[in-house]
């Protein structure tokens, strides 16, 4: 793997131990994955909730935070994925003191590194969307797949350590989705059905993710009868990445690199449609009709999703907890426009800067007696089985109805 002069200097420790660790980490990862050199990145985005970090991960960050300022500061704009709590709601969520304390330590360490605590997985909707062709080190699968596919940016899945390394060095190993060859289509999916609701977009993304089943495969989808919106593609991509570890897709006639996805001739298509989505939904519909909690999260809600939730809850009361999780960028707008007040007037909770599955989901379930969980997020449905939940995937309207009656529709 070729290193330029600056990387060589970092490797020799001339810019401190933090950058030395970072470039050593990048060399190990890059060699494993066949990178030939390093590519400069415009931003890094770090996933680092403390359930993932644990005490060991927080202590790892604190070692960097204790280094001299010149050596520890990130070199490119570096932002964060959701945290493990909303500090203002931790007591209501029955999160334990040690969780909050660990989160505070992680935040302090990141701030010492010069990281911007954006705490969001929808930065492409709220912070700064990347430009086509811009190389990034994004650390959330939903962010990566959206930005690669819809916006034409170039990023691999960069887990927290690698995103941190990219922030510290300003570059990342050039493999995978930084390369033209990896961005070409490798699976043709034809459909005669265009989803309507967000949970259907997520479910279809999940079906295609399972079909692809591999980080290195790039589905090309043909047959939608309209151009999907940003929230629809957000759920579609997040679920595809979750169910299949997929990092990029093309939609013919929509996404920017779709026209060049295949050489001639095109591969034989796989057909998916409404029936496949119905089958996926049915997998989660076998846990009885009682519901313990309703969650809108994963990805965090956009302002438009917050508006939709508010409209559905107007003049209603929830009888089981309903959590609407958004970003710290959307929340002030939701406050200012009265959306938060309308949602919380129903008894529901608006949470900010966290994401349900990244917030000690197992302990949340045990502390609150939550097992049967309704959501319109296919991604969340896919994740939570391992945390002891019996999730069910419904429309936003059905979820609100479930929250107001305690029963699944």
């Amino acid at each position, binding site marked *: 793997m070729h290193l330029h002069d600056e990387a060589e200097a970092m490797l020799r420790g001339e810019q401190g131990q933090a950058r030395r660790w970072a470039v050593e*980490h990048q060399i*190990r*990862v890059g060699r*494993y*994955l*066949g990178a030939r050199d390093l590519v400069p990145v415009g931003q890094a985005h770090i*996933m*680092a*909730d403390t359930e*993932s*970090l*644990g*005490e*060991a*991960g927080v202590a*790892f960050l604190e070692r960097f935070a204790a280094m001299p300022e010149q050596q520890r500061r990130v070199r490119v704009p570096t932002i964060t994925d959701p945290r493990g709590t909303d500090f203002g709601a931790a007591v209501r969520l029955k999160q334990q003191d040690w969780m909050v304390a660990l989160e505070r330590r992680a935040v302090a360490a990141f701030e010492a590194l010069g990281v911007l605590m954006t705490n969001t997985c929808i930065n492409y909707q709220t912070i700064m969307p990347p430009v086509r062709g811009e190389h990034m080190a994004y*650390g*959330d*699968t939903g962010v990566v797949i959206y930005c690669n596919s819809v916006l034409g940016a170039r990023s*691999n*899945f*960069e*887990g*927290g*350590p*690698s995103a941190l390394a990219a922030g510290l060095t300003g570059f990342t190993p050039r*493999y*995978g989705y930084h390369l033209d060859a990896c961005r070409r289509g490798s699976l043709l999916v034809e459909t005669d059905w265009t989803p309507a609701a967000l949970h259907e977009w997520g479910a279809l993304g999940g079906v295609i993710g399972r079909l692809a*089943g*591999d*980080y*290195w495969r790039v589905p090309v989808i043909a047959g939608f009868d309209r151009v999907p919106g940003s929230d629809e593609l957000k759920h579609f991509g997040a679920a595809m*990445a*979750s169910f*299949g*570890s997929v*990092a990029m897709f093309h939609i013919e006639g929509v996404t920017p690199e779709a026209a060049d996805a295949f050489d001639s001739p095109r591969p034989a298509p796989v057909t998916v449609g409404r029936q496949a989505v119905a089958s996926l939904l049915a997998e989660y519909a076998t846990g009885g009709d009682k519901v313990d909690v309703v969650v809108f999260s994963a990805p965090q809600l956009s302002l438009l999703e917050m508006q939709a939730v508010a409209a559905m809850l107007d003049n209603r009361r929830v009888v089981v907890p309903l959590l609407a999780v958004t970003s710290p960028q959307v929340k002030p707008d939701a406050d200012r426009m009265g959306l938060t007040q309308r949602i919380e007037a129903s008894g529901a909770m608006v949470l900010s800067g966290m994401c349900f*599955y*990244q917030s000690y989901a*197992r302990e949340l379930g045990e502390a609150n007696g939550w097992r049967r969980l309704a959501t319109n997020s296919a991604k969340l449905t*896919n*994740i939570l*089985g*391992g*945390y*002891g939940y019996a999730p069910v995937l419904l429309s936003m309207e059905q979820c609100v109805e479930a929250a107001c009656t305690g029963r699944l529709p």
Partner: protein
Amino acid sequence: MTAYRAAAAMGRTVRGRALVASDGFSARYDLDRIAGIFSRPQHELAGRSYVGVVLILDRAKGGVATAWMLHEMAARGIVPAALVFNTVNPIMAQGAALADATMMSGFEVDITRAVPDGALVEVDAEAVPPVLRVISGAETG
């Protein structure tokens, strides 16, 4: 003794009993990391301990959390002895690099079908090319 060459590896050479399934792997989606078992009910290894074994699975799946979680698991000693896959995603490589774990991937055969569950195996990550050796068959009784 049967040996299988791999395309890539990192970490030290280790020996251990193989825990094998044709399923995928994500530390967040599949594990109860406190109990050290596979917890996702649909996983082929649901209920089985992953601690100290050579974990042989088809592919890495899911999200980015594994990159931190392997490090956290290693710090508590609740971790597989080695990770072996047919196919990895970058997160597994990043996580193994941070955790200083032994990992190997990319075989000419489906390694989940080639190695019997319970076999004693050696993951020689330092060989060139890397090699997985089946030392003896599955323990019985």
